[in-house]
């Protein structure tokens, strides 16, 4: 027994002795260009033994471990290096660390895209910018019009991108199409986006060359994502010069509900500041929105529902009639969007959504006769999308979707003419796209979109691809190409019956430089249009003939510069677009520049925060060179050009206290007399001359005052991020 005990003691001291026998592990850590990496963590796996590399990349430490061990060398943004060998062999090692394919520092596929959101790597616009841009007055679309690639069409208000018509831009909420994104508005009054920016925390605006996941848009897509999880329960009250709003968010367990109600009426404002219209019924809009969210263990369900009702009756001047013509519109719009996003087995991510839209317009028009038009549109979009990141090099995105649209119109006038038209469109689509990151400096996106167009009974294939190469730590170049199809609008199809989808091809070259608080982007593009709709007659009517023989092109240069670093508390951005575009479509006599396009577009947006005044001041200036119009007195088609457009927006947000904000916005305070175009008489006068009338904005200037009050538990949140 004693013997055993002694043996054990001996054995034990032998072990401890072994533990104290030291070996030195040493070497140097370098990157692939043989530059030393200081600060790397070098250690034997599963032990406490290790060290940190010094300034020249060298390291040395002693260990009591023996035999075969695993040496690990790790450093952030590099692939961890493993070396298995006898400890005694681990000296004077040269270790080369490979750069990790890294989403933080690597190349990004960005051609044509502006992102605003927390997750976007390069954010040209921040979520807040959508709503703090002076002149935009809280309109998502208004803020985007300060980005290059867009043209200001002041009498319309919708997004016109790179020589495309407004309906060539499609808007998606949580991946699901919005069928009627704009509010109804009278002639010559800019419309606004229907959906309040309060609900969104991410915006991606692509001016071309976008992913195969999106289609039915010849020019551009705007992707909005709703807030995933509200952080707290709150009530928002807004009192504005135009109306009032009330919002409330409740959270219960894994569920939350947000409700927004709003009502606006222009009557009081118009009493104070009459505009060029005679209003029989001033513009009024009542709207309600609700979002319900439910969190599952592996996913999130969102149910968004919105309803609004718009009504107005207005008398406007028309060169063809001695008296003002009257126009009354009642619009009812109902939109539902249900989406689920969650992770499945094997790292697949499933996104699925359904959008249902019901829109009803009732027009009562009186010129020299009374006309009544009833339009009704019921549309839906279903989508299932699967994404997977196989490894750091390969991502896949694939899915199927289905668009369906049913349009009905009833027309009636007091000359006893009445007819009904109807358009049904069905469009099944499938798409697949892959992102390949070859290295941290080179990436490729390649995708294809296949669809069946029920209107023309055609199968369409649209390839999309983009390539990005990082030229330096802060800069990269990208190239993109894509084919885009869009079904012809209901306005034509209701009379034409069957027409081919219109087609566009995009070629884009982009250079981007991003460095701490400064972004520079320039983008050259060429866009080719084919199969555009042409028709005969003065307007697209039931007796016109229709074909797909239209064509056109747009090319140009877009430049964007944002700087929030140079001046303290000040943030500004500058956009400039040069565009050369012509098209022969509609009832055009020749290939000319269309009336919504301009050679030059410029915007300057600045924001300045003055701490002592607890105020943010905003200033926006926009300039658009003259736009073409057709003068029937001249032989040349569309040869006239309006004078250039100038606008200034000022705003002031004043933080009364942590939960109360006063917001004042003044558009065009200098009273620039802008001209949207000219309306010529349908027939010449007795001297054989077509008389004309200048089309001006309904109001030159606009003032908005609002008071916003938030009531929340923590008494700190306010609606500053809503302004």
């Amino acid at each position, binding site marked *: 027994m004693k013997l055993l005990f002694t043996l054990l003691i001996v054995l034990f001291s032998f072990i401890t002795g072994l533990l104290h026998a030291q070996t030195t592990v040493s070497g140097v850590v370098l990157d692939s260009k043989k530059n030393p990496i200081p600060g790397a963590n070098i250690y034997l796996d599963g032990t406490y033994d290790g*060290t940190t590399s010094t300034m020249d990349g060298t390291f040395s430490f002693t260990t009591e471990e023996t035999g075969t061990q695993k040496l690990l060398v790790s450093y952030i943004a590099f692939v961890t290096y493993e070396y298995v060998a006898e400890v005694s062999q681990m000296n004077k090692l040269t270790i080369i660390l490979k750069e990790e394919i890294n989403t933080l520092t690597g190349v990004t596929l960005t051609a044509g895209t502006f992102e605003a959101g927390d997750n976007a790597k390069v954010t040209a616009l921040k979520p807040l910018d959508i709503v703090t841009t002076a002149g935009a007055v809280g309109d998502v679309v208004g803020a985007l019009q300060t980005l290059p690639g867009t043209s200001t069409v002041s009498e319309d208000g919708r997004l016109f991108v790179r020589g495309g018509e407004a309906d060539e831009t499609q808007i998606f909420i949580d991946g699901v199409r919005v069928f009627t994104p704009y509010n109804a508005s009278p002639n010559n009054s800019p419309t606004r986006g229907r959906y309040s920016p309060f609900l969104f925390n991410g915006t991606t605006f692509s001016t071309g060359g976008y992913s195969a996941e999106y289609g039915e848009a010849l020019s551009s897509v705007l992707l909005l994502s709703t807030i995933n999880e509200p952080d*707290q329960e709150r009530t928002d009250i807004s009192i504005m010069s135009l109306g009032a709003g009330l919002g409330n968010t409740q959270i219960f367990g894994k569920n939350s509900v947000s409700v927004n109600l709003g009502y606006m009426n222009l009557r009081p404002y118009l009493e104070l500041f009459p505009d060029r219209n005679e209003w029989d019924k001033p513009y009024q809009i009542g709207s309600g929105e609700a979002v319900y969210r439910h969190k599952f263990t592996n996913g999130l369900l969102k149910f968004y529902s919105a309803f609004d009702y718009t009504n107005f009756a207005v008398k406007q001047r028309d060169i063809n009639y001695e008296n003002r013509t009257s126009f009354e519109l009642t619009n009812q719009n109902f939109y539902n969007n249900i989406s689920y996003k969650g992770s499945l087995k094997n790292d697949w991510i499933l996104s699925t959504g359904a959008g249902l839209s019901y829109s009803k317009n009732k027009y009562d028009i009186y010129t020299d006769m009374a006309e009544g038009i009833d339009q009704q549109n019921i549309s839906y979009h279903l989508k299932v999308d699967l994404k997977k990141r196989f490894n750091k090099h390969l991502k896949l995105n694939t899915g199927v979707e289905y668009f369906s649209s049913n349009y009905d119109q009833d027309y009636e006038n007091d000359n006893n003419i009445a007819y009904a038209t109807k358009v049904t469109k069905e469009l099944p689509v499938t798409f697949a796209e892959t992102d390949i990151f070859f290295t941290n400096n080179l990436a490729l996106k390649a995708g294809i979109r296949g669809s069946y167009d029920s209107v023309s009974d055609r199968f369409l294939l649209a390839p999309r691809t983009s390539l990005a190469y990082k030229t330096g730590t802060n800069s990269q170049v990208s190239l993109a190409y894509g084919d885009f199809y869009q079904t012809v609008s209901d306005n034509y199809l209701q009379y034409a019956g069957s027409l081919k989808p219109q087609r566009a091809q995009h070629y884009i070259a982009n250079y981007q430089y991003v460095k701490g*608080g400064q972004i520079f982007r320039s983008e050259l593009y060429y866009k080719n249009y084919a199969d555009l709709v042409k028709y005969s007659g003065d307007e697209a009517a039931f007796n016109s003939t229709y074909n797909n023989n239209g064509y056109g092109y747009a090319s140009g240069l877009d430049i964007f510069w944002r700087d929030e670093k140079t001046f303290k508390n000040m943030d500004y951005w500058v956009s400039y677009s040069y565009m050369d575009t012509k098209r022969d479509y509609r009832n055009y006599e020749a290939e000319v520049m269309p009336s919504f396009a301009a050679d030059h577009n410029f915007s300057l947006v600045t924001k300045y925060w003055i701490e002592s005044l607890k105020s943010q001041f905003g200033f926006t200036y926009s300039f658009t060179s003259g736009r073409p119009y057709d003068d029937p007195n001249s032989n040349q088609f569309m040869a006239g050009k309006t004078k250039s457009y100038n606008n200034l927006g000022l705003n002031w947000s004043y933080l009364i206290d942590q939960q109360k904000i006063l917001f004042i916005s003044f558009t065009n305070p200098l009273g620039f007399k802008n001209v949207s175009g000219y309306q010529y008489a349908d027939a010449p006068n007795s001297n054989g001359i077509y008389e004309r009338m200048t089309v001006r904005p309904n109001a030159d200037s606009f003032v908005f005052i609002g008071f916003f009050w938030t009531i929340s538990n923590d008494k*700190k949140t306010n609606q500053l991020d809503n302004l």
Partner: protein
Amino acid sequence: MKQVIAFLALFISMSSIAQSTYEKGMNKGFKLWGEGKSLEASNVFERISNVEKENWIPLYYVAQINILDGFTIKEKTELELKLEKVKTALDKAKALSPNNPELMVLEALYNTVWIAFDGATYGMTLGAPTTEIYKKALELAPDNPRVVYCYAEWNMGMASYFGKDTTPYCQEVKKAIELFSTFKNETPFYPSWGKDRAEQIYNSCNK
């Protein structure tokens, strides 16, 4: 019997070696940190966390060191990389020790680094969630001095940003200072920082 004693002795001496290795390692990390070698210190704690796979404490210090470093960084990419490290460590630690108020404090400080870096971008999006984190931590551990003091400092920061009176939070800081002297946790190397800073703030309150 003697055999048993011998084995026990062996076992105890072996395990005491292991114990002391942990202590030695942790102390080495604190020593380096004290000398201003935060990168080396963070590496030491990271190595320890690689061995002590069930222990959240070394990960806590990896996160804390890199958060404190983060406050001094002015370059976005550099900060992103640094905070990526913090996030990885915090996520691992939270998995080992869910609902840990000490880790919640670090999570709130992680958000605060972003806000300090660019208030216009991150203040609006991270402000309210940070308050929520503190509220939850306070619910779980109303007597934890770091929770009380950090929440008070956060509130003071918000109040001064909005030009409000910060003195109402002085009482909270005072309460935290009292809690620092009574707070006990037997876990070795359990976080114990904060008292000096709390006293500093409290002193400036009375000026």
